[in-house]
């Protein structure tokens, strides 16, 4: 443990090369700057997300989890995932909404204080994705609760989710 701490103190190198998208393209740097500004401005430096799995295959969740790892580390922008819907500004919903989760999703949504933003994340959440048409799913979040924003991909990778959140913030700026 001491060795690890010492290493962290003495080396300034990232533990892993930053993903290409992050490192190279000036646009992604711009994404981050904008994201930071937006969160500082609209959300007073803190955006709290409650993630809800409404029947996803779990890949979408792992990508959300990856957002908090040391590489993407979205906490540095003031974004964090919270445990209770009562603490959340935003609901990030994945999965096609299976019928057996419908009620739980509605209740969780109602437990989130207004104003809340609802984001459907992943192709399944957008319109049912590959599961569209199955008897046990409702073909997307918007059939159950009103959705403000969509992030596509199966699964959207962490960078796509970050870009999605940034775009959402830009959209909010226009609206607010």
């Amino acid at each position, binding site marked *: *443990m001491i060795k*690890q701490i010492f290493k962290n103190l003495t080396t300034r190198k990232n*533990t*892993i090369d930053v*993903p290409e998208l992050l490192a190279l393209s000036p646009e992604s740097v711009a994404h981050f700057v904008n994201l930071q500004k937006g969160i500082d401005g609209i959300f007073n430096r803190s955006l709290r997300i409650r*993630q*809800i*799995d*409404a*029947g*996803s*295959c*779990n*890949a*979408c*969740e*792992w*990508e*959300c*989890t*990856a957002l908090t*790892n*040391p*590489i993407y580390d979205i906490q540095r922008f003031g974004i964090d*995932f919270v*445990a*209770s*819907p009562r603490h959340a500004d935003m609901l990030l919903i994945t*999965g*096609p909404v*299976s*019928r*057996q*989760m*419908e*009620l*739980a999703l509605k209740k*969780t949504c109602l437990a989130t204080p207004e104003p809340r933003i609802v984001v459907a994340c992943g192709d399944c959440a957008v319109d049912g*994705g*590959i*599961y569209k*048409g*199955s*008897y*046990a*799913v*409702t073909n997307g979040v918007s059939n159950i609760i009103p959705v403000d924003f969509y992030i596509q991909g*199966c*699964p959207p*990778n962490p960078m796509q989710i970050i870009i999605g959140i940034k775009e959402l913030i830009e959209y909010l700026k226009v609206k607010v």
Partner: protein
Amino acid sequence: MEEIINKAVKTKRLFNELYIEVRKDDFKEACVYLYGKKRAILRLMFATDEREIDTAFKIYTVFSVPGTDKFHIIVLPLKDDLIFPSITPDIPAAHWYEREIRDMFGLTPKGHPDLRRLVLHDSFPCNSFPLRKDWNITEPELKEWGKGLVQKEPYSFMKVEGEGIYEIPVGPVHAGIIEPGHFRFSAVGETIFFLEPRLFYTHKGTEKHFESMSFFDGVKLAERVSGTSSFSHSTAYCMAVERMAGIEITEKAKAVRTLLLELERLYNHIGDIGNMCAGTGLAVGYAGGAVIKEKLMQLNERLAGSRYLRGMNEIGGVSKDIFIQADDILNIINEVTKEYKDFMKLLTGTVSHIERLENTGRLSKDIAVKLGVTGVAARASGINDDIRKAHPHLLYDKLDFEAHTMARGDVFARMMVRAEEAECSISMINALLENRYKGELAASIKEIPPCSSALGYTETPRGSVFYWVMSDKNGRPLRVKFRSPSYCNWPAVPFAVHGNIVPDFPLCNKSFNLSYSGCDM
């Protein structure tokens, strides 16, 4: 063996599958004989609606006898009388399968000790069986199911009564970024006396959905059954369809699949070991695991264009030759090996972490055998069972590896088994990259023979996965049955957490790392 075969109505052999059709009176006896005398493992049990072809529902029970690469499949046709003798009293591992058959087909297992619904929740209409071919349901009924307000067949949780016992209901929506499931603890003080999980919230009708697409499109769906086992699921599915179509894939395709299976195992195992640290509050371990995992995920993306290795498998082979990128793989694997060693040293050297793992969530071998537990959980409880060894497929018979077991059955054992398997995967990947492989990437298959069936299987990072496919008269899917490892392991979790304290539940749960989506179908 002769005794069963002599009594059989019909037998059929296909590769290593031996189908034995029996009469209703002999069904139970045949299963119990295999299980009791031959120590066979129940791999999978399911029903089909073959009224179109054979005027009967059929029940298939798939056993494999340790030490032989053979599947004994006992088949029981049900014509007029839709009741079959339950084998659960003798073979406890069948308990969920039989309840599922009742839910989905309306065939009743006579003598089953627990006939509550399993897959379908309370507000699903009574006497409505989704996997029957002639099933239909009205839109209002579906809507009502979703609203979940009217209880058609109420589910009663097991009640524990006594002084000082209180109930803690948790879920389906949990605090972390995880999948939904309901847990009901009956606790005495902090100690868990009894836990009843209620799952199947993510039931998406996947098996029925397979029937609505062609076998070729089914690959995409198989990849999306369980996110982190995407590649293993699609491999097992493709294998089943390929066997049914009677084609042998090339050595090259086999090599690519084996390599990717091991890459999938590696990122999962390392990620899981890191995740266990979240359960003990060791943030540095959690972050360390996440970094190595991310590195492997990015490698996946460069290789397959998908962080979950989706789009690589197709019926007949694979879509891309990843051996072209052998240098990239080698580089990353070398880096990962070094980091992983340091990482494990850090974990095993942190006493506060290890102490939490030891003796927590103990699953005894006896219970694990009875419930048919599979994969890491089984091996950590001393069951030497690995599909890669028991039923060699792809290139696994040419590779040198061991199935690691540990006898203690606690969280620590599950971590160490993962750690050893991860190292094993690294050496397998290195060995695979040393050779050159011949052949096309994919064999072309145009048509699927009508009215045929086959089994496909492989070892996912969590345990064995099975697919059984059958085609109808037009060569379209009549039935696609899959059984993910989580389905076998979920019933074991309550036994593992019994006697532990409630705050250790997340840790136990993480040590099994079960998929809800894969289990809920």
